[in-house]
């Protein structure tokens, strides 16, 4: 009899944990590795550049780690206010858009994003690939690797949901960075520079981090913008600004507004980047 009670208790615990999406019961399940998502990009919807008059200054907002598991109208109301106040042209989401990569979560966040009525450009994060989340991500958003140009500014979006770029994507990134553009901005989920005390989801391969830093230095990347850390960090290493955007639940720096004015990039009250 005690064995039956133990078994039922264990079963109930497992069912409870699985039902609670916030606890990531399925996070140990493996999704597609980065190379396969990269190879799959040509089968997926591409993103077109937003319609922006590049001859005039324009603004865009960057947010990260929304971790959507239930709708959050308050947060999107704040974004909506920022959009109106700052004349935001488009929004970039730096990954971990959903908490556990489920179809319901992707649909929920897409509905709330659509209500903003401005273009948005997503980056895939580690939470988005949980529970085989890439299948849902590609249906809702499309490809995970893309780029576009607005005037002399190149926007590059990479897939580091596994913590790494992988060989094929790194070659692609190199080709995108080689081009002669006035401004080059890279948006991704993982930063090559971790926090001082590494977590278990830190960038796994220090040699790849070194290669990304060297690549940004060689091809004059202006700003490498990422999320994942749930903290705000900015560092300049070998001429490239590495910016980590805070998560949406935080009070400070959870929405970073960039301004592009000709060959100048600025964010956060007059911090200018000129390479």
């Amino acid at each position, binding site marked *: 009899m005690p064995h039956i009670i133990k078994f039922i208790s264990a079963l109930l615990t497992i069912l409870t944990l699985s039902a609670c999406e916030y606890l*990531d019961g399925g*996070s*140990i*399940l*493996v*999704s*597609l*590795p*980065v*190379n396969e998502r990269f190879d799959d990009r040509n089968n997926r919807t591409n993103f077109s550049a937003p319609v922006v008059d590049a001859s005039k200054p324009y603004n865009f907002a960057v947010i990260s780690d929304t971790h959507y598991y239930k709708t959050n109208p308050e947060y999107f109301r704040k974004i909506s206010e920022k959009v109106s106040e700052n004349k935001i042209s488009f929004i970039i989401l730096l990954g971990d858009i959903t908490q556990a990569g489920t179809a319901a979560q992707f649909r929920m966040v897409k509905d709330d994003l659509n209500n903003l009525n401005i273009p948005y450009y997503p980056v895939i*994060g*580690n*939470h988005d*690939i*949980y529970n085989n989340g890439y299948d849902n991500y590609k249906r809702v958003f499309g490809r995970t690797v893309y780029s576009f140009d607005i005037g002399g500014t190149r926007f590059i979006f990479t897939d580091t*949901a*596994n*913590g*790494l*770029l*992988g*060989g*094929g*994507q*790194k070659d692609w990134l190199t080709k995108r960075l080689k081009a002669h553009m006035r401004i080059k901005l890279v948006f991704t989920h993982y930063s090559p*520079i*971790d926090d*001082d*005390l*590494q*977590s*278990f*989801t*830190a*960038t*796994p*391969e*220090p*040699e*790849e981090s*070194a*290669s990304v*830093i*060297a690549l940004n230095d060689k091809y004059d990347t202006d700003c490498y913008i990422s999320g994942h850390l749930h903290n705000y960090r900015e*560092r*300049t*290493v*070998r001429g490239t600004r590495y910016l980590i955007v805070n998560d949406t639940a935080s009070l400070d720096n959870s929405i970073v507004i960039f301004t592009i004015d000709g060959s100048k990039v600025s964010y956060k009250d007059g911090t200018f980047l000129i390479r």
Partner: protein
Amino acid sequence: MKTDGVFLRIFLFIFLVTICGMQNLYPTDASPLMKGRIELGLNRFLFSPHYITTSTGIGYEYIDGVRRTVFFENDNNFKLSELITTGWRLKIIGLSPYVDSVSHRISITPLKFIDISLTNSFTNYARYDMLLFDTYWSIALKVPVKNVSITGFNAGFCHRVTDYDIYGNGTVYGTDYKWDHIFVYEITQTFNIADKDAITIRIGNRRDGLPVSTGYFEVSFENVYMVNKYAGLYCIIAHSFAGAGSLAGYHDGLRWSIGVVCRIL
């Protein structure tokens, strides 16, 4: 109810019972600590060379998007006494060879089942003008089962300084260099499958014995076959995984190496 010192006494009791129990897993040997101090004297406890092991080999390493290279490795181990073991390791990579990493380690074995080790290493990312300096300390607990298998639990911290630009003279923290503190762990399982052959399975976030990152995960199989008590062959095959939330996706890494082991008694 008066409880002064009760918890301390319970802790000491459990601690001593555990220590005695663990020591008794080695029924044929007295504690090296006691043996050293009482029977052999302090000098022999601190310095009474047991053996030198040197292993030399070649291998191939593939990490997707990072490296695809042959390498040469040399590892030397000196068991200076029951208490102290020291050694160093050199890894050279590429067809136009250059030093990839150099490390020096020292470990003390105060009790048969505990190793406390300190490793200093230098990793050279010459292609990217960057260097890593690691100081890595760890404590390993070894649990033998009747000379058939040994299970090991190893945990520690690696304190890493990354020099972002070896040609730059800047000294600004976070811009020119940065500290990282990395939790390092390893679980090992060794099986003496035959008199002269042993297989070790290692699971942890180290590569070639050196910490990689907290998010790194590697499984390696190491087989050492001793032809006689002085010489043998070794073969290592490792596959690395990495990624978000431990296993959501993987980092495609593969390494193998083969070589010879010499032991001077």
